[in-house]
């Protein structure tokens, strides 16, 4: 069949069957007590950092704007606590970069800001403005500002909006809880998309290990309503944007293009609920439902915590640790980011924090590649990690270009199945950087050549 300009003979993309470990799926989230301090970084999204508009010593209230968006691709930041601004300085993020952060000493009163009122939304522009003002970014993990994603030049280009409820990472159940506990908000979000974005077809994609979510939404769908539920096999990385697009509308997003170029917008279910909540109540994104789990956690559960809460306080709320945590993650075990200490705050796009004991933190020893081809046969995008590794080690960026390492979404299937425990995701990340440098250098060289030739022509004249 011809799809997205490319012939694909398969109905499903490759992946891996990871253990589900959805231990907390049945637990309604508990609201944790307000921590003594919150530290809110200005960069919890893709794009320019937000600009603080409060000073040390200022009083802030819940829902008060504390930082403005730093550009078009950016997002404003609100306080989730009431209290006093204690510090304004740079903090080290887990990604290794320093970003400005606002530290607020809480007063425990949780006084609501007077500015909170539902925004007036009657047109597409007002809808997009509201999304922008809500501070909502991609809550599935990517953190891409939602307003930017929804800013579409030609609405007719949208053939389908796909609501991502796959939640394919092990342990994480915060999306599941949002889908069940806030189904009203999710559904209102769907209505908003239909009304203002004129979306004709909305597909809610949910992995089939969440039958309760599937049946809940199937009941809400009426015929002719334009909303459908698609039960997807529980195969990691089902929730990856490109994977989800292929498994719902059967299209391949070409290299260098956006989902919109194949008529799709993918939006996470929790993201949509947060947008709907702001438009309904005027309360921006100031708290998150987080799954707290892992072998070192005493009482795994879902917790609602203000953004900026140190993860240590969240773990304490869950009864602390059974054994010393040797590895702590933001997000799930397949793509999550390991944090160096427990002071790291809850971010907008944090959907889980996991703590593992010594046994689970052991990094297995790397052995020689036996060329078994498992990494190749499990890659959802048909990449060849073993060949990428060879090309990277031989420092051949031109080979990396042919192998399309730039398409890699770092889902980790290759490293998951590797019997030799090779750090294939790490190599892919480094190989991507090598390819980028090479392409930039090439571009610069061709431009210089062009300039020289032009200069020569000028001289001849």
């Amino acid at each position, binding site marked *: 069949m011809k799809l*997205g300009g*490319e012939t*694909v003979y398969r109905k499903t*993309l490759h992946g891996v069957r*990871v*253990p589900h470990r959805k231990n907390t799926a049945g637990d309604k989230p508990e609201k944790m007590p307000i921590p003594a301090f919150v530290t809110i970084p200005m960069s919890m999204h893709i794009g320019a950092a937000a600009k603080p508009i409060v000073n040390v010593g200022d009083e802030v209230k819940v829902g008060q704007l504390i930082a403005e968006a730093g550009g078009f691709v950016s997002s404003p930041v609100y306080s989730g606590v009431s209290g006093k601004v204690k510090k304004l300085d740079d903090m080290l993020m887990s990604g290794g970069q320093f970003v400005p952060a606002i530290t607020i000493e809480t007063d425990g009163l949780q006084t609501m800001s007077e500015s909170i009122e539902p925004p007036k939304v009657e047109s597409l522009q007002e809808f997009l403005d509201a999304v922008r003002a809500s501070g909502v970014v991609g809550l599935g993990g990517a953190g891409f500002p939602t307003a930017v994603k929804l800013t579409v030049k030609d609405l007719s280009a949208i053939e389908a909006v796909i609501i991502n409820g796959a939640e394919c990472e*092990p342990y994480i159940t915060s999306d599941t809880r949002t889908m069940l506990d806030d189904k009203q908000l999710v559904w209102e979000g769907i209505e908003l998309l239909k009304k203002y974005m004129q979306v004709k077809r909305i597909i809610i994609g949910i992995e089939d290990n969440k039958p309760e979510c599937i049946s809940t939404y199937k009941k809400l769908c009426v015929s002719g309503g334009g909303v459908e539920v698609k039960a997807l096999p529980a195969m990691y990385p089902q929730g990856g944007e*490109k994977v989800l697009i*292929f498994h719902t509308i059967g299209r*391949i*997003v070409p*290299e*260098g293009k956006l989902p919109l170029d194949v008529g799709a917008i993918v939006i996470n279910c929790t993201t949509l609920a947060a947008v709907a909540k702001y438009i309904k109540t005027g309360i921006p994104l100031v708290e998150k439902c987080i799954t707290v789990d892992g072998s070192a956690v005493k009482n795994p559960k879902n917790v609602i915590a203000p953004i900026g809460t140190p993860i240590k306080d969240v773990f304490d709320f869950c009864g602390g640790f059974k054994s010393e*945590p*040797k*590895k*702590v993650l933001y997000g799930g*075990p*397949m*793509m*999550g980011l*390991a*944090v*160096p*200490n427990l002071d790291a705050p809850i971010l907008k796009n944090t959907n889980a924090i996991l703590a593992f004991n010594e046994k*689970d*933190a052991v*990094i*297995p020893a790397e*052995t*020689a590649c*036996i*060329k*078994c*081809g*498992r990494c*190749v*046969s499990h890659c*959802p*995008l*048909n*990449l*060849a990690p073993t*060949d990428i590794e060879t090309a990277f080690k031989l420092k051949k960026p031109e080979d990396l*270009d*042919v*192998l*399309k390492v730039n*398409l890699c979404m*770092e889902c*980790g299937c290759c*490293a998951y*199945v590797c*019997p*030799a*425990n090779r*750090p294939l*995701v*790490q190599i892919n*990340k480094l190989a991507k950087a090598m390819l980028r440098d090479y392409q930039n250098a090439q571009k610069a060289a061709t431009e210089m050549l062009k300039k020289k030739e032009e200069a020569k022509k000028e001289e001849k004249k």
Partner: protein
Amino acid sequence: MSNMTVSISPHIKDNTSTTKIMRDVLIALVPALIASFLVFGARALLITAVCVAFAVAGEWGFEKIVKKPSTIGDLSAVVTGVLLAYNLPVGIPLWQAAFGSLVAIVVVKGLFGGLGQNFANPAITARIILLIAFSSTMTTWVIPGATDAVSSATPLAILKGMEGGGTLPTITNMLLGVRGGCLGETSAIALLLGGAYLLIRRVISWHTPVAFIGTVFLFTFLLKGDVNYSVYEMLSGGLIIGAFFMATDYSTTPSTDWGRVIFGLGCGLITVLIRVWGNYPEGVSFSILLMNILTPYISKATRKKPLGGVKI
């Protein structure tokens, strides 16, 4: 709290390992070992033991000399030793078997960079070197069940009408392995049992064995038009052990499904060409070695197109 591990994702792994894969291969080779003991007697076990011992010791010693960490724990040397033993006649002098093991491990595997780096199958290459160096002991076959070592012809030699020919064993004996041949290659049933185990455990894929054995069957059928003849061709020589255990070796064969089909096809064609027109009665070893050489090209040609990738 500075003692927390910070590492790149993924933070969990499935439970495969190189050692577990090699252990599965060894388990799959057990039925053939039992069969060879029943067919050829205790000497079959002795030869296997010598080959394994020298393969493991060779790897250990080689890695000591070149100052590499020892990898004998991954069991790959054991697999090479067993496979080489299965490709030797039961009457071979022990020192020749030991020499073959050292050639396989040190020359074919170690000198090319160790596990995963060798381009040729160590056991196959060692067998071919032994066949050329010691052609008389390597082609002296023993009639199974005979109390004294009486030289006999293999079914392939009989099929080819070579000198010293006799009558063909029955199909039942071919399946059970009561025929002249190398010690681990004769019992089709034992080998198929092991092959099935590897397929079920997903250690190997079906592509190469099916393409390899299928090609031999079809090609010989096209040549003679006799199903009976083709069945004998299929059960003779080292075809089944080659197709399931040697042509599926990871590092020396393609890693793509289509590559594996092409590899099996090529092996089948070369095997029949040698069996029918060549000087040797058997061509499985040569065919696998020749296709090993083509492996990098087959892998490259059959590499899957990255999804969404724009051609450059």
